[in-house]
C-alpha cells in the first residue's frame, strides 16, 4: 500500500527541487522514488492548489523540562486565557500559549505543519524530566541540547589543564548519559560566575574561582564537538544577553571561533548598540555583515512578537539583571546541581515601548539582511521572544513587504526612526521559507531523513493551500502527514502519533566512567549510575533515534 501525493507544487530545496510539479510517493512511513507508474493500490492525495513541503523543524524552542514547568506555574492567567479545546480532535488535556502543556505543544506545532522541535537547554541534572515531557508531546519528533560550559566538572578540568582529550571524553559521556543530540553553551562561564556572585562576564574577562575566560570555554567545547563529530556545532547563547552595546561582544565572538563552526542562537538579543538619546540602537547591520562574511557561522533570530509571554533561560545572571522588569511582577530563579541554573521571567512585549519595538525591528532586520537562508533558522526562541504559535505571522512579515510596512507604521515612533527596516525591500520566497523552517535545521542537526522529500526521507509531508495571505496559509495546512499518516486535516488535529527522540552517542574512554563515578559520589551526592539515562527510559522503552557522529 502506497500513498501518492499528486498535483502539488513541491518545494524541496535540500534536493534542488523548487516549485516543481511532482508526485511524492509514500510507503511504510517513508518517501520512495516516484518514477514508477502509479499502482492500482495507491491511495491518491490530490494536492492541486497546494504547496508541498517537508515537515517543519524548529531547532530552538523551550518546550520541555524544569524551567518550562516553572513558566507554566507562573503563567496561570495565560493558561486560563487559552483553554481547551484548541480545534480539531480534542485530546482535551491542556492549553496555554506562552507555556503550553505538552499535548497543546504537540497539537499546535502539528497544526502549523511542524513535525520536529528541539529543546535547546537541557540541564544534565534535569535531563530525565525533560525527556519525560518530550515523550508526552504528540506528533513531534524531539531532541535536547545539553547545556555545558558552566558545569564545575568541566571548568575545573579546563582550569587544571586536563587536556582536550579528557574534555572530549567528558562531553561524549555527558551526551550519552543525558540522551541529548547537541551541545548548547549558555553565557559561557557566566552562570557559574553568578554562583560566586559575579554579576557580569564579558568574552575576555576572567571568571571567578577557575580563572577562565568565556572565550577559552567556548573554544574548548567547539573543539570537543568538532572532534567528536557531533553534527550540530556549538549552539551558543553568548555573553551579555540583552545588554545595550552587546553587539561588540557578539562581533568579537564571531571573530573568536578559530575556524570552528558556531551557531549563534537568538542573535536578536545579542545585536544591540548604544547609539541615540536612549542609548539603545540596532546592531543588526554590523551583525549581518559579519555573518555574511563568515560562512562557518549560522544563526537563529529569536524574533520578538508583541504580546504576553514568559522568558525561560538557563542564564540566571541575565535573568537576575532583568527580573525588575518582569510583567506580571513575579519571577523564579534557581541554581542547578553544579550544572547550570535557570531564570523564568514573564514579559509583555509592547509595540508602544521604544525598546520592545526596536527589538522587533532588529529581529526582522537580521532575517532580511543575512543573505544565505541556509545559515538562518526561523525561531522566536519560544517563548522568550514570543510563543511559537506566532510563526505564521512571522512568516508573513518576512514574505510580504507591504504587510511588514503596515506593522512598522504602528510601532513606537522613535523606534521607527532607529531602524532601516523600511528601506529593506527583500521578501522571503517560498523556497527560502522551506529552507529556514525545514531544510537548513535538518542539515545542521545531521538529520539525514528529515527536512526533505527525497527517497528515504521520513514521510513528514505538509500540504499548504497556496494563498496570498501567507499567515493564513501557514497557520492551517490542508494536510500534515507524520511518518506517512495524516495527523492534521484543514488545520485541525485528527490523530495523535508518538514521536521519536534524537540523541548522539559518541564513544568515551572508560576511564571517564571512573572519574565521574567519584565526582558524582563525592561532590554531587548522586550516583553516576542514577544520573545516566538508559535507552529504555526514552519514550516508554522505544529508545532514542541515534544521529550519526562523524569525527
Amino acid at each position, binding site marked *: 500500500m502506497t500513498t501518492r501525493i499528486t498535483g502539488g507544487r513541491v518545494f524541496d530545496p535540500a534536493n534542488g527541487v523548487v516549485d516543481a510539479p511532482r508526485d511524492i510517493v509514500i510507503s511504510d512511513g517513508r518517501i520512495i522514488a516516484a518514477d514508477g507508474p502509479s499502482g492500482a493500490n495507491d491511495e491518491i492525495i490530490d494536492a492541486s492548489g497546494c504547496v508541498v513541503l517537508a515537515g517543519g523543524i524548529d531547532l530552538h524552542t523551550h518546550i520541555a523540562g524544569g524551567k518550562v514547568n516553572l513558566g507554566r506555574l507562573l503563567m496561570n492567567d495565560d493558561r486560563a486565557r487559552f483553554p481547551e479545546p484548541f480545534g480539531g480532535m480534542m485530546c482535551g488535556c491542556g492549553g496555554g500559549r506562552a507555556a503550553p502543556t505538552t499535548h497543546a505543544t504537540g497539537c499546535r506545532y502539528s497544526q502549523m505543519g511542524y513535525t520536529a522541535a528541539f529543546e535547546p537547554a537541557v540541564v544534565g541534572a534535569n535531563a530525565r524530566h525533560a525527556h519525560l515531557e518530550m515523550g508526552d508531546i504528540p506528533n513531534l519528533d524531539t531532541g535536547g541540547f545539553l547545556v555545558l560550559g558552566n558545569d564545575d566538572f568541566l571548568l575545573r578540568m579546563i582550569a587544571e589543564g586536563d587536556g582536550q582529550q579528557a574534555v572530549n571524553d567528558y562531553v561524549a559521556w555527558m551526551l550519552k548519559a543525558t540522551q541529548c543530540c547537541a551541545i548548547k553553551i549558555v553565557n559561557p562561564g557566566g552562570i557559574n560566575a*553568578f554562583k560566586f556572585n559575579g554579576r557580569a562576564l564579558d568574552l575576555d574577562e576572567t571568571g571567578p574561582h577557575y580563572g577562565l575566560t568565556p572565550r577559552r570555554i567556548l573554544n574548548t567545547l567547539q573543539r570537543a564537538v568538532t572532534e567528536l563529530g557531533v553534527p550540530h556545532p556549538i549552539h551558543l547563547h553568548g555573553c551579555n544577553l540583552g545588554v545595550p552595546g552587546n553587539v561588540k561582544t557578539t562581533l568579537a565572538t564571531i571573530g573568536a571561533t578559530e575556524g570552528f563552526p558556531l551557531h549563534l542562537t537568538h542573535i536578536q538579543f545579542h545585536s544591540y548598540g548604544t547609539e541615540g538619546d536612549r542609548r539603545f540602537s540596532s546592531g543588526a547591520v554590523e551583525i549581518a555583515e559579519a555573518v555574511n562574511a563568515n560562512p562557518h557561522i549560522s544563526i537563529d533570530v529569536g524574533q520578538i512578537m508583541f504580546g504576553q509571554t514568559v522568558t525561560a533561560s538557563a542564564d540566571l545572571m541575565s535573568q537576575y539583571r532583568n527580573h525588575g522588569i518582569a510583567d506580571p511582577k513575579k519571577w523564579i530563579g534557581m541554581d542547578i546541581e553544579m550544572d547550570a541554573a535557570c531564570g523564568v521571567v514573564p514579559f509583555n512585549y509592547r509595540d508602544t515601548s521604544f525598546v520592545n519595538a526596536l527589538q522587533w525591528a532588529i529581529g526582522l532586520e537580521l532575517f532580511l539582511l543575512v543573505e544565505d537562508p541556509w545559515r538562518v533558522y526561523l525561531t522566536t526562541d519560544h517563548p522568550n521572544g514570543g510563543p511559537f504559535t506566532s510563526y505564521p505571522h512571522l512568516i508573513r512579515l518576512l514574505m510580504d513587504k507591504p504587510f511588514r510596512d503596515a506593522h512598522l507604521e504602528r510601532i513606537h515612533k522613535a523606534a521607527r526612526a532607529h531602524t532601516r527596516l523600511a528601506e529593506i525591500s527583500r521578501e522571503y520566497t517560498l523556497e527560502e521559507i522551506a529552507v529556514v523552517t525545514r531544510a537548513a535545521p535538518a542539515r545542521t542537526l545531521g538529520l539525514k531523513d528529515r527536512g526533505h522529500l527525497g527517497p528515504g526521507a521520513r514521510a513528514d509531508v505538509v500540504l499548504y493551500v497556496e494563498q496570498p495571505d501567507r499567515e493564513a496559509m501557514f497557520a492551517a495546512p490542508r494536510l500534515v502527514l507524520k511518518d506517512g499518516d495524516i495527523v492534521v486535516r484543514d488545520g485541525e488535529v485528527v490523530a495523535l502519533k508518538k514521536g521519536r527522540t534524537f540523541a548522539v552517542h559518541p564513544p568515551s574512554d572508560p576511564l571517564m566512567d571512573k572519574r565521574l563515578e567519584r565526582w558524582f559520589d563525592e561532590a554531587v551526592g548522586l550516583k553516576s549510575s542514577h544520573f545516566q539515562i538508559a535507552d529504555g527510559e526514552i519514550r516508554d522503552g522505544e529508545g532514542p533515534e541515534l544521529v550519526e557522529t562523524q569525527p
Partner: protein
Amino acid sequence: MTSDDESRDDADRIVTDVVCGFCGLGCDDLEVAVSGRAIRPIKACAEAARLLARPDQPPPAPRVGGQETTLAEAAAAAGRHLRGSRAAAFSGLGADLDGLRRVFDIAMTCGASFDHEASGGLFANLERLGRRGWIATTVAEVRNRCDLLVVFGPDPTLSFGHVFERLLPSAAGDADAAPLFVAGRRRRVVIIGGALSEAARRALAGQEVVEIPVPTDQVALAAQALTALLAGRAVADLPELDGIAPALVALVEPLKAAAYSVFVWNAGVLSTRDAATVAEAAAGAVDVLSVTTRAAVFPLGGRDNITGAHQAALWRFGYPLRTSVGGGTARHAPDRYATATALKDADLLLHVSAFRPGAPADFERGPVIALAHPDTVFTREPDVFIPVGTPGVDHFGHVFRMDSVVCLPLAPLRNAELPSVAAAAEAILDSLRRAA
C-alpha cells in the same frame, strides 16, 4: 544497582545503591538483602527501613466488595463505578510518574479532581512561589556552596532522616569531596525552631551549630522578624520573641557576609498559614541578600513523589494539583479541590498509595476505589481494592527529588507479583475503553 549473585534465588542477595523514593530526599546509596519475596534493609534510615522491609509472603488478591477476585474483574468493577460517577475525587496520588500518568488518563476520561496526600506544605509554599516566585537551589549546590544554613521549624531529621548528611557533608579530604567552595570547609548552621535530636547533632558534628529555640507556633514570627532585620526595618516589640531577638539580630551580619546562605523549612509540619509566612519570609530574606551576595531557598518536602505529581500535573494540564479535569476542560481551584473539601461534594473516591500503607479518608458519599499498598488497613472495606506494588521494591518507576530538578530511576528489588499503579490504572482504562 548491583547484586552479588543473581543466580541464588533462595539465598540472600545483597543489593547496593538502592534509590529511595519515600521522603523525597532521594538518597541513592541504600542497601538491602533480598531473599525470595523477603526484603531486609541493611543500610537505610528508619523510615526507609520500615517501608522497604517485606516478609516472604504471597501478595493479597484484589477484592471487590470484600470478595477476592482477579485484577481484570476488579478493574471492570472500578470502571463501572467510575462510569456512574459525576464528581469523582482522586486522592493520595502516591505513585511513580508512569502510574500518575495513567491515573491522570482516568481522570481525563471520567472527569475527576485530584490532590496528593502531602500537598498541604506544597500549597503553602505556592502562596509565595506561584504568586511572586523565589530564588531556589538544589542538593549539589547546597552541598558545595552553602556556608550558612538557616533552618526554620522543628528538627528536619524527624521527617527526612539523612537530610544533614545529604545537604551538608563534612569534608572527606578528597579533591572531589563536597564542600568544594566553602572556605575552611566548615559551615555555620542556625536552627530557628525546635531542639535538634541527638542524631541531628551527630550529623552536624563537623559544623558550627547555633540553636535558637523557638516554639513551633512562633517560628513564622521569628522568620518574619529575621527578614525585617535583614531589610533594615525596625522590629516592633514582640513579647513572644523575648529572649531570642538578640540572637536574630546577631544573625544579620553573618548572613550579609555569607557567600551562599540557604534557608530551609518543612512546610508540611507547620500550620498552613505559618508555612506560607515562613516561605514568604525566607524568599524575602533571599531577595534582600541577593542584592549584594548570593542566597537561596531550599524548601523541604516531597514525600511519596508529590514533587513528581506536581510536575506532571503542570506539564499535562498546565495547572498544579487540586485541579479538576474532564469534559474537555480543566479547572484549578486549590481551595475547592483539596481532598478534604473535594470529598464534601464528591460521589466517588479513588485513592492511590503505592509507597506506604496509607488508608483513604473516611468517605460515605459513594464508592471507594483503592489502588493501594497491600498492607493498607481500611476503616471501611473499599468497594474495589487493587493491591499495588511499590516503585523501587516491585517495579521500575521515576520519582522526583524534593528540589524538583532531579528525577530518579527506581528499580525493582524482587519479582513483581503485584501490578504497578500504572498497570492497575491501565486495566481500569481498558475496561472503560471496552465499555465506550
